[in-house]
């Protein structure tokens, strides 16, 4: 039995894979709590997809991926905000137009950039090919993001809960929002190696959604989201090793399984709990009331 757990770890690439997946998942799990509460799930997807051309250009010019991702992530946010403010289109329409266009630009750039195989990994992830260098980069970005999120967690939570109050005590809600979106762009880079751009939004939404169903306070939510995401990463990496299936896919399916359990069985907000509480009155009850 123990061999099931230890045997994969004898391979160095599996050690790297496990560590990078756990680190990226835990940080994405933290951030996902705010994205879910701000109603920014779609925004998360938009930023995650929009960084593709930035990553490709960074690769072509030998710059760090995080820089390219950050620039294009912010560009996407500015374009979405700009279209929103200068037209009568609805917000989700602006998001849909911008991120698909930037994603398409990224695909076109990939097709004209040498070394296609490496860039395909940006789309689908390549967690088993994680080098020590990749691991250190993810760890550094992850630590930075987690540190900023945790230090400013009360301000971010206030921003999500009551923007007007945040404004009325002199906080700059625009700066805080921009900071959160910057962290989103950086976090996406940490998760690229594991999941690739296409699935990264799963990590940025599902753990927060699961934790939201289970928790009464935001502090609990942060803990549940990051721990459950890390657990899903472990389960996903092992499942992919033993069953010979896609690692990114297994990790997201493990998160989806956690979400399904929470959706049905969560004590207060779960389906069963809600059904029990809203059971229709029997005729006798109705007479009595």
């Amino acid at each position, binding site marked *: 039995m123990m061999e099931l757990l230890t045997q994969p770890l004898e391979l160095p690439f599996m050690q790297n894979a496990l560590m990078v997946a756990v680190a990226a998942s835990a940080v994405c799990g933290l951030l996902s709590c705010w994205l879910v*509460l701000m109603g920014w799930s779609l925004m998360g997807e938009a930023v995650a997809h929009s960084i593709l051309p930035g990553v490709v250009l960074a690769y072509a010019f030998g710059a760090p991926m995080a820089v390219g991702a950050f620039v294009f992530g912010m560009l996407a946010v500015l374009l979405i905000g700009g279209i929103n403010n200068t037209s009568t289109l609805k917000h989700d329409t602006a998001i849909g137009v911008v991120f698909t266009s930037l994603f398409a630009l990224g695909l076109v750039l990939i097709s004209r950039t040498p070394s296609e195989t490496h860039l395909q990994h940006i789309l689908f992830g390549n967690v088993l090919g994680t080098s020590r260098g990749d691991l250190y980069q993810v760890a550094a970005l992850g630590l930075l993001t987690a540190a900023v999120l945790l*230090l400013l967690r009360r301000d971010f939570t206030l921003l999500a809960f009551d923007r007007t109050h945040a404004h009325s005590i002199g906080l700059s809600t625009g700066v805080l929002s921009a900071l959160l979106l910057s962290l989103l762009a950086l976090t996406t880079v940490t998760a690229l190696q594991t999941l690739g751009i296409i699935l990264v939004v799963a990590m940025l939404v599902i753990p927060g959604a699961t934790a939201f169903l289970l928790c009464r*306070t935001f502090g609990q939510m942060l803990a549940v989201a990051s721990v459950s995401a890390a657990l899903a990463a472990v389960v996903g990496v092992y499942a992919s090793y033993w069953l010979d299936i896609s690692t990114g896919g297994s990790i997201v399916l493990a998160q989806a399984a956690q979400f399904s359990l929470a959706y049905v069985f969560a004590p207060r907000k779960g389906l069963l709990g809600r059904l029990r509480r809203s059971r229709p009155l029997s005729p006798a009850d109705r007479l009595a009331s």
Partner: protein
Amino acid sequence: MNMTEAPGTEPNLYPAVAAAQLSAGYPGVLALDGVDVTLQRRSICALVGANGSGKSTLFATLLGLRQPLAGQVRLFGESPHHARRRNLVSYVPQHEQIDTTFPITVEQVVMMGRYGHMGFTRRPKPADRAAVDKALEQVGLGDLRRRAIGELSGGQRKRAFLARAIAQQAPLMLLDEPFAGVDRSSEQLIVSVLHQLRDAGATLLVSTHHLEGVGELADEVILLHRRVLAAGLPEDVLTEEQLGRAFGAVLSEPLAQTPEDPLAERGEERGL
């Protein structure tokens, strides 16, 4: 420094609110048109008007959420920007603005009122905890402090947000429809708390389209309908004729003067 006392009690200083020839609105809609508002310190002013009369726009402009198209706003002689940074103004939101599914307890909501007094990581100090305890007691929510905000009734939730503003200890408080969707006992409690706050030196601007308690609540009344239709003592402003102009013919009949069935009328108003 106790902020409630700070600029509020010094003599011969600027009024709590001074808005001159204020115009504000949205593209194609002029919600406020040349509005003058002056609030003396240590008073309760009721801002009365129908839905769409510009009450919320006035609040947004006083808070600096919306830039005026013309005119200017001064709070204690300062721009809204500086007033916010100095914790001079607090805001109690309408209940539609509150996300009741948010995972947060009553106590945590009230603690948010203290954030302007804390360092950048917002770690509460003993003084902050004491202010939260006192505010919760004042609105009668001491026992419910660990409840999630979504588990409270409408009136209790209103009191929780009032407690947040109390804990903030700002000398100017803006309250947006504090009596909408509130049960009778919460309403009475809120009125008496607002009187206590005024007596302690605060200035309160309370928007409402709920007319029957205005005379008891407020020291003065501003009747708003895009412009200031009337301002002054409640008995001078809340005349049938003025209310007719503010609310239109439907509501002009028996409103201000002692209604026979207050509850029925309140229900009607809520449906507006």
